[in-house]
Every structure is written in structure tokens, then in C-alpha cells.
């Protein structure tokens, strides 16, 4: 249970014209359940590719990626999709809510895709709504919500399947300081309750909050700092 993520010798290359970009270059990484990581680095350093790979959205060209006791690299796309649904929650910088659906329906989406009946969905959603403080906004469309509220809905969607791994890509990038701090507080609260939290960010102060900080340059992890004891 200590090592929920194990990455071994992962490479990922992209072809840009006749140039080959080595987005991930021999990555080795072990992450225990409940860790709080930040990934920082300049643009093009491969941190987004790493996040995609960890989120099962992208498949390494080489290497192994063990998640919850299974190597995900040889999996079929279909198997990876359901694995993604059950194990990983995403929080994006630009929220990615579906505009025609209400806040509630957006949060229900993963359950809908999992084929859970509407009554059960409501039941599971109720405590999440309460926790996110969205009671009054739950039937609003995304365009009627503030940025902070939208990101809360997105977080609600990410945690509804009770995924043990939460991946956040610049979660505060589109938010003002106040609602940004609010969202970070929420994410850290979830982490404190045992969810593994990985945050990719440019924001030094946000990155420094994490107990474990990775720095990436040119597709390689150049530093892996830990401060104190991980929570």
C-alpha cells in the first residue's frame, strides 16, 4: 500500500516535423498512497506529458507504469478507460465542464459513464455537494457560476468516484488569489484524508506547499525534494 505508483524507465517521444522531441526521458518514480507532490519546470520540460502519462491519457513508448498493483502499459484502450474512471480524478486549469449540463449533471458524469443508476447517483452526490458548499448552485449551468465555483464543480466531478489519485493541472491558473486559495485548501483537505495529490504548476508558491517537489527539465526529473514528513 505504500507504493501506489511505480514508474520504471518510461520514455515518451513525439515527432515534431522531422525532429524527435524526447518528452519523457527515462523516468523512474515511486509515489506512496496519500503523498502530496508538485511537479514544476519550464514550459516544454515534459511535466504535462508526465501528468498525462500518470493519468493514463497517454501511453509510454517504453517502460512500466504500475498503478494500484497492475502494469497499465500493456492494457487495451478500453481497459485503460475504465481503470482511469475508477482510479484517477482530474482537475484542469480551464475546468472543462460541459456547458449544456448543470453543475449536478457535470459532477454526475463519471457515474453516468460508469452506468450507475440515477437514484444511486443522487445518493452518492449529496455528501459531495455539501462538502463543496454548492447546495444552492447545484442546478446552475457552468456559465452562471464563478470561476471558483466552477473549479469546485470540477473537483466534485474528480472525487465522485472516490479515486485514490487526484491529478491537478494548474488548478488555480484561471482563478483570483482568494478563490485560488480556496481551491487549494479543498485539494489539500482531500489529500489529508488520504488521496494522493499531484499538482502540476508554474506557480512557485503553490508548488512549494507540497511535501514532495519534483523539478523537470527536458523530459527528465532533475530534483526530487521532500520537506519534513509527508502527511
Amino acid at each position, binding site marked *: 500500500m505504500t507504493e501506489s505508483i511505480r514508474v520504471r524507465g518510461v520514455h515518451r517521444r513525439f515527432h515534431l516535423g522531422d525532429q524527435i522531441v524526447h518528452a519523457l526521458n527515462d523516468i523512474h518514480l515511486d509515489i506512496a498512497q496519500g503523498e502530496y507532490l508538485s511537479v514544476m519546470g519550464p514550459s516544454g520540460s515534459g511535466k*504535462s506529458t508526465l*501528468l*498525462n502519462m500518470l*493519468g493514463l*491519457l*497517454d501511453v509510454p513508448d517504453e517502460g512500466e507504469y504500475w498503478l494500484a498493483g497492475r502494469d497499465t502499459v500493456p492494457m487495451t*484502450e*478500453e481497459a485503460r*478507460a*475504465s481503470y*482511469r*474512471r*475508477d482510479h484517477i480524478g*482530474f482537475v*484542469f*486549469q*480551464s*475546468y*472543462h*465542464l*460541459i*456547458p*449544456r*449540463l448543470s453543475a449536478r449533471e457535470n459532477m454526475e*458524469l*463519471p457515474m*453516468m*459513464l*460508469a*452506468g450507475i*443508476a*440515477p437514484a444511486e447517483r443522487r445518493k452518492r452526490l449529496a455528501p459531495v455537494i455539501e462538502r463543496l458548499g454548492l447546495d444552492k448552485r447545484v442546478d446552475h449551468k*457552468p*456559465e452562471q457560476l464563478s470561476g471558483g465555483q*466552477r473549479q469546485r464543480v470540477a473537483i466534485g*466531478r474528480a472525487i465522485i*468516484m472516490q479515486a485514490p489519485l487526484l491529478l491537478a*493541472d*494548474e488548478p488555480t*491558473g484561471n482563478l483570483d488569489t482568494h478563490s485560488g486559495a480556496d481551491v487549494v485548501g479543498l485539494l489539500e483537505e482531500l489529500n489529508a484524508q488520504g488521496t494522493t495529490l499531484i499538482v502540476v504548476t508554474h506557480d512557485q508558491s503553490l508548488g512549494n506547499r507540497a511535501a514532495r517537489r519534483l523539478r523537470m527539465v527536458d523530459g527528465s526529473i532533475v530534483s526530487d525534494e521532500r520537506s519534513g514528513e509527508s502527511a
Partner: protein
Amino acid sequence: MIRIQDQLTFTLRSVLRQRFRTTMQLLAMAIGVLAVVLLTGIGEGGRRFVMAEFASLGNDVLIMLPGRKETTGGLPPLTGEGTRDITLEDANSLSRMTGIISIAPIVAGTARLATSGISRESMIIGTSETFFTIRDLTLQQGQWFTTRKGTRSRAECVIGARLRDTLYGPAKALGQWMNVADYRCRITGVLADTGTGFGFDMGDALMLPVDNAMQIFNTEGLFRVMIQIRDPDNAPAMTTRIEQQMQLRHDGQLDVTIITPDSLLSAFNSVLMIMTFGVTGIAAISLLVAGVLIMNMTLIGVAQRRAEIGLLKALGASSMEVRRLFITEATLLAGAGALVGMLIAEAALWGLRLKFPEVPFTAPLWASASAITLSALAGLLFSWIPAQKAASLQPVIALQNQGGK
């Protein structure tokens, strides 16, 4: 796996959201189906109308003509080019057969009619009085001529109503002498206007006893023999018996063709069916066009909803589910469009029936069914490529910060 109800709701909301696209697709499909159903309905109505006209001949009348041709497939021979004539004696011998009610020999041709200074070329039909009962003709004035067997018939004739109008106008025609080529006959009757039927325009024709007509045209051979049989269901057996009789009389050679009304009808039927099919085929092209439009629209939809597709995949939708979403959407649209088109077509056919009550304008079930099936299929087929494209989209793009909501 996503539940069917959820998928339908999801699809429906996405369809309702994109009103313009939805309207265009519905319209395209509706027009395609409208064209197919309407054109088939009109074609089918025309066919049935023509068939009904032909059926007025009655299905208990066989037609014998000289010459032998295979009548399976295609039109039966309409021009007699027999090697050996059917004589009046041949025809009379048939009338003695059991199962035959009556026969009407026919000699036809054109000749110059002349009466008190007016002359014109006209259709001459030499026949017997049985012709009138077989063809169900009625007289406006006077009476039928009578033919006599053995001796020569009297010089009498019956004329069509239109011919009477052209030659005599309002003057009395009955009892007048008419010159037919170098022969003379007295008009005993005028046909009621029964219009056209089976190729003969009775309104413009002059009818006279068959033996006199044979003399006028200087022929021994009959053009046709109409045979009225007692039992229409027995037509094939009667045909064989008549053929045997004729073979016997013609030194063992079978050189006549007997057309049953059914074979005639089926021949015309197949011609008209082919026409209906042709028209349907042309209309089906518009369905194809609608299909291409659906493909374009779905492609645009996929391009516009890249972020959504990526998101769905990130949230755990498999490629198959994404593909199914788009295909369901396109098929739903195609189906709804087809339904709209069919309703309009049925309404239009209903209007046509009101306007032309004599023509039975109705789209056959097969046309409506195949139009609906075809449009659903087109929706399915033409959304396949875009859906495939959507499904193979890398979910990575959903993570990219592209300013979505």
C-alpha cells in the same frame, strides 16, 4: 458501461443545444425521404391507374392473334405477323367449344370514309355483334348490326360518337349511307361515348360486320379473335385447349398466340414497375446527399466538441462509448428527419388524392419502409467515419489549457 437512458438523454440534450445543425440535418433527411415516398407514391398511383384501365377489359377475355411468340417476359406481340392466317372458320370453330361463351373476330384497318362531300380517314373494325357484349359497349342511338353465318351480312355499320359529330354534325346520322372505300353501308347505330380502351379509340371508329370488312381489306385472315370464356380461373387450361384446337386446324402447327388478360397486365405492370423503381432510384440519390450532409455536420460537430470528447475519455469513457454517442446522435437525427419527411409526403399524397380522386396515389409500404431504413442506415454509415475520428481522438487534448469552460 453507460446506461441507454442516460445516453439518450445526453444525446438529446446535445442535439437540442445545436439547433441550427439539427434543423439542417432534419431538413436534408426529410427532403430525401419526402422525395422517395412522394415520387414512389405518384409512380405507384399512376401504375395502379393504368392497370385499372386495362382491367376494364375483363379477365374473362382471351385474345388470340396470328403468329407465335414467346410471351414470357416483355410485352406480348402487338403486331400480328403470322405465317398463316386465322380464318373466320377457325374463329367460328372455337365458338363451338365448351367453356367458351362467345367469340368476336376482329379485322382492323383504316379506310377513307365519305358521306355527302365530307371524307376522312378512319379506323375500321370488322367484327360481330358479340364484340359489343364482350367489350361492354352501349349504343347512344339505333341498334347493332347483325352478322350472318353462311351468307353475306347486310351492309350495316355502327359509328363512334365523335365520328358522327365530325361527319354529320347535328344532322341525323341513323339510316344514312356511308361510303367505306369502295363499299357502302347504312348506319344503324351510334356508340355511346365510352372513351378509349385497349388501344382502340371507339369514338372515332366505324364498326361493321366482319365478312364485309374482310372484303374491304381484301383479306382472309383475322387481326384478332376475342374469346370470352366462362371461367376466368380456368384461363390457362382454356388457352391450352384453344391452342390444341388451332393446331389441329392448322395441320399440326402451332402458329397462334393467345394472350390472357393476366399476362397482358403483368407485362404492362412490369414496365410500369420499372419506371417506378427508376424514379425511386433517382429520389434515393437525395437520400445519399442527405447522408453526406450528415457526415459533414457530424465532422464539424466532432471538431467543435474535441474538448468534450477528450473530457469524456478522461472521465472514463472508452473509445467505443464515444463512438456510440456520435452514432446515436446522427442516427437519431436521421430517423427523426425521415419521420418528418414521411409525414409531409403522406400529407402531400393525401392532397393529391383529394385533387385527383380517380388516381390512387399511395406510397407502397415497401417504399416508405425502405426510405426509413435507408435514411437510418445513411445516418449510421455516414456518421461512422466522424465517430471513428472522435473515438480515436487523444484524450490528452482535454488536459491542454485551451480556454474551454
